[in-house]
């Protein structure tokens, strides 16, 4: 790790957060890439690949549920932890601090909507072709 690097160091394969576990921290990627995967009935699905400047685990800042997905490191990474208390203390004084998070979450929601529409369209066209 170089003297000027911030955050914690992770190696490929390291799990930063694990699906189902409870944790109240958010993470910001300073360097490297991670994958977000979800396990359903023993089958792992990759939901996203995140890189420098992206964050994950933000849902833990707003709710008490367990982690919705596992985040695994793809290449040597540096990741900074954001404490829930630090965030909430500041956002109480400066609500605009949450803008960046809301913007990113909104973009993710839009992507998911597109994905959902695409999957539904695929299913519908598959069903029609079977009927035909």
């Amino acid at each position, binding site marked *: 790790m*170089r*003297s*000027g*690097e*911030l*955050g*914690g160091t992770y190696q490929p394969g390291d799990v930063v957060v694990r699906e189902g576990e409870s944790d109240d921290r958010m993470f*910001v990627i*300073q*360097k490297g890439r991670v994958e977000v995967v979800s396990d359903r009935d023993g089958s792992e699905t990759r939901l996203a690949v995140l890189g*420098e*400047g992206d*964050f994950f685990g933000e849902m833990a800042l707003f709710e008490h549920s367990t982690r919705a997905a596992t985040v695994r490191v793809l290449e040597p990474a540096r990741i*900074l*932890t*954001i*404490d829930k208390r*630090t*965030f909430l203390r*500041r956002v109480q*004084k*400066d609500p*605009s*601090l949450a*803008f*960046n*998070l809301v913007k990113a979450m909104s973009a993710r929601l839009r992507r998911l909507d597109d994905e959902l529409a695409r999957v539904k369209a695929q299913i519908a066209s598959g069903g029609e072709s079977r009927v035909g």
Partner: protein
Amino acid sequence: MHSSVTGLRSSLGLTERDRLRRTFYRLARAEDSRAGIELEHGDRVGIVGGGPAGSLFATFLLRMADTIDLEVEVDVYEARRFDHKGPAGCNHCGGIVSEFLVQLLSIEGVNLPPSIVQRGIDSYMLHMDVGSVRIETPPTHERRIAAVYRGNGPRASEDSGFDSFDRFLQNRAVDLGARIRRRLVSGLDRQLDGRIRLRGPDGLDETYDLVAIASGINSHLLDRVRRLDSLEDVPEVLRTFICEFPLGRTQVRERLGNSMHVFLLDIPRLEFAALIPKGDYATLCMLGHEIDEELVQALLDAPEMRRLFPGASLPPLACHCFPRINVRGSSRPYADRVVLVGDAGVTRLYKDGIGGAYRTAKAAANAAVLHGISAESFAEHYAPACRTIDRDNAIGKVIFRFSHLFQRWRFVRRGLLRMIAREQQRNGARPMSGVMWDMFTGSAPYREILLRTLRPAFVRSLLWNLVAGNAPRPGRREPNPEPL
């Protein structure tokens, strides 16, 4: 009657033109206040000072304006070039970005790259005559504090590939559309229509709808700003001492590691001293009362300081300065179309000056874009942020007075050392470590720190450690300094 008034006016040095000008401005301002002055499409914003406060003000203003589809023109006046080494590019500051601010900036999308972080700090070493103890980052053990150079390093430093923190923030403002103007602003006045005109020795004459003063406390411009209406009081300042020791990268790593070294020493007039490891250098920051060469020498001669250097010998200083810091903010850091941010207005007591710049710059930028640029608007939407800092600073002064007991009484220092050392050896609650960590790093408001020290469990533990740390034991001797 008329002649007597004219005579009085004449004796006051007021010309007819002055009188008309003042009357017109009073009327215009009254009209503005009623209507509420707001930033409109195409308005011009001038920012005097391109350090963190100025660049962050530009960034937040442009970002918020973009959010509400408002187009404004932003000029940042900064004559210094932060890519120059030595005083020409230096902003006279210890250069610590606190753990709290590193996290906030990251949430804002401003991630500090390794090219501007001279060293990531993961712990503090507290040095006292009774011993030294390491306080580690709770609870992540990550490097979350950044040691940076505000400029491009000391004059004689070699090109190490590191960049200036101030230039990094400036570039981000430029990316959003701010324009950097390398011109000196030496004066400002209000035009008939209430707008602010900036003037400079090279013929600068530009008028702006809003002017943010982010020139720091060490600028002569503040005297000019004071002459503007309503801005009568100026911040109270304290002289500090900052110097750079050329040690070389290897010695910095081996002698200081990734720790910031804080000194709690019984030296009269000394408030606080810290040695910050950077690339090839170590920066010493010293706060105290009436700092002079005698006080500086007393600190440099202290064995707790000397033992950190190879052969207990201090190398010649690469550079040094006696900058002033703001210890009590301006009570009214705004007027119609003018707002003071960063050190020029209000900042946090002794610590986290860059964090103070962030808070005031953001609060002022949001107030200007969302609520207006009249004095009334700033009073309602910007002043609360300044008052919060000011009130917390008042509590901070109480805490620092209390900490003088630690500095003066050796038996208290023994108890403190024992309490922290025991906490650091175990998992679980670390009340004193947390208090000292937040005091040194500026990671928590002083109010919160004070409340924690008033908890019965904290007081009980401190009292117990005072007794246990001073209990006579056969063959007792002071603990050796902890290895780095």
